[in-house]
């Protein structure tokens, strides 16, 4: 193992004891890599290799029984003409609208609870509850709230003079997806609120004081002092929430099953159906690669946002 070992018995090195540099380097490498190994192997085996494998599979036709057959870009060409996939892609991109709404709403909520008032920490906890609730339970409870004709929300709306007839939140093709997205928002507000709270509290109070001394009102102070200082938090929330939106599965799967028809079907739901119900594994892998490329593209846009902050 150690060709340059001069000591027959390994003992703990004493301070000041000189050792050959090469042996030391070897020892450092062994120690370092053995600490890193368990996590690195898991990452390699369950993240990196599957990612490479996914790209390879996307160029094949594979049903998990006979060997994969290389077919070039045929999957991708077929996907462009696949009405169900294009529809799911549109739905997933529409789902991204959750991000700007979440940015604004959770920032407003953070500003609301970023003050010293009796009971304010109780409200923070109340706003965070949806974040920890399992998505399946969330989806089930909300699908009963949205139910027509006798769900809670419809019963409430029925009391209003200008609403006639129940609204089919989950069973009409125009409302199903927005209804699911509203639950995604409900579940996310608390998490992003906490991130904005941390961002708000990191802003030095001198900055705000200076703005007030210069005669800025509350609105000017928010837009010219607070908002620019929050740029890192805004970028983080934009990246995290848009990646979450691209991955949407649990809520639409439970609430609408992608319906009515395919009106609320997302890309991940299509991947799930193609890969695990129809065993079109190569085809589903190609769908995954497209989703991956969209994720990369969006992250790139967000990185540019970060860079812009660094320059100013």
């Amino acid at each position, binding site marked *: 193992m150690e060709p340059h070992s001069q000591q027959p018995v390994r003992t703990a090195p*004493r*301070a000041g004891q000189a050792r050959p540099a090469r042996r030391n380097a070897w020892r450092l*490498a062994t*120690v*370092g890599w053995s*600490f*890193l190994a*368990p*996590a690195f192997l*898991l*990452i390699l*085996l*369950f*993240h*990196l290799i*599957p*990612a490479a494998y*996914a790209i390879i599979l996307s160029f094949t036709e594979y049903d*998990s029984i006979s060997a994969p057959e290389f077919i070039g870009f045929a999957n991708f060409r077929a996907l462009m003409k696949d009405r169900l996939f294009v529809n799911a892609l549109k739905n997933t991109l529409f789902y991204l609208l959750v991000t700007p709404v979440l940015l604004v709403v959770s920032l407003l909520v953070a500003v*609301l609870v970023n003050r010293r*008032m009796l009971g304010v920490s109780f*409200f923070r*906890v*109340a*706003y965070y*509850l949806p974040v*920890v*609730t*399992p998505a*399946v*339970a969330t989806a*089930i*409870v*909300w699908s*009963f709230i949205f139910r027509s004709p006798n*769900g809670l929300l419809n*019963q409430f709306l*029925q*009391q209003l003079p200008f609403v006639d007839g129940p609204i089919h939140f989950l069973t009409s093709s125009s409302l199903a997806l927005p209804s699911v997205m509203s639950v995604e928002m*409900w579940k996310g*507000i608390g998490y992003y609120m*906490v*991130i904005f709270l941390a*961002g708000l509290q990191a802003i030095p109070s001198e900055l705000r004081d200076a703005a007030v001394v210069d005669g800025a009102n509350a609105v000017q102070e928010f837009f010219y002092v607070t908002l620019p200082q929050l740029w890192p938090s805004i970028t*983080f929330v934009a990246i995290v929430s848009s*990646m979450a939106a691209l*991955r949407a599965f*649990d809520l639409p799967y439970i609430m609408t099953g992608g319906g009515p028809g395919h009106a609320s079907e997302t890309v*991940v739901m299509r*991947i799930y159906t193609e*890969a*695990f119900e129809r065993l079109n*594994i190569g085809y589903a*892998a190609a769908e*995954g*690669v497209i*989703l*991956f490329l969209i*994720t990369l593209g969006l*992250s790139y846009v967000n990185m540019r946002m970060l860079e812009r902050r660094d320059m100013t």
Partner: protein
Amino acid sequence: MTLRDLKVRRVITKALLYAVMIVVAIYTVGPFVWAISTAFKGPGENVYAFPPRILPEEPTLSNFVTAWQRVPYFGQYFINSLLIAGGSILINIGASSMAGYALARLQFPGRSLAFWIILSTMMIPFQVVMIPLFLVVLQLGLLNTHLGVILPTAVTAFSIFLFRQAFLKLPKELEDAARIDGCSEWGIYWRIMLPLTKPTIATMVIFTFVSSWGEFLWPLIVLRSPRMYTVAVGLAYLQSQFSANLRWIMAGSVLATVPVLIVFLAFQRYFIEGATAGALKG
């Protein structure tokens, strides 16, 4: 404007702020209240009545008992979910803290390359690799096992990163003193450094528990027999089987949520720390 006017204005502002906070709280907590109250309502009550009655007229536990009995293995789901969460926590804390320690405190060739590789996996959405992951799990003979659910999702770049940050903050003197005293590399990590990252460990335990408990898609793919289901997968099954009985489904949903709510309410502080740890890296 007199002093009294100012005082009145401040009271009005405060009242308005509280009003807005309460409205938002009704929006976020209302569905919980409604679900819990429905789960306790007896068969004679109209669960669709409007306005909804918060306190049940004839409160009963029978919905919970029925949900527990009607769904095959409902108790087993809880054991399964606890096993999977426990396994994920052990592997995540063990492997991620060791890797984070190596990346933060040890000098060795390939360290920055390894760090870069680990970080790059943050960009890969799980849903993209789930197909090959399924094939890997199949190859390893882990289909329909709890280990098959645990291993692929246990260690994430994020948890390694979090531990690296925690170890970077510790003073170098500690390590040097231990080395001079003849402590082994493992001893320095296990006895000196790791205990100093307790807040990070607590945060990771709680976060891993909540995310593992709520995980739906991957267990749905890996677990094939109902006896192996997690609570989340079992709950989806309950909903598909008994969609007509609102009381049972609400009882099941409440039962499935109680464990994470307990953990959350008991350890709120760590949730705030964990949520912001990633954001503040700048």
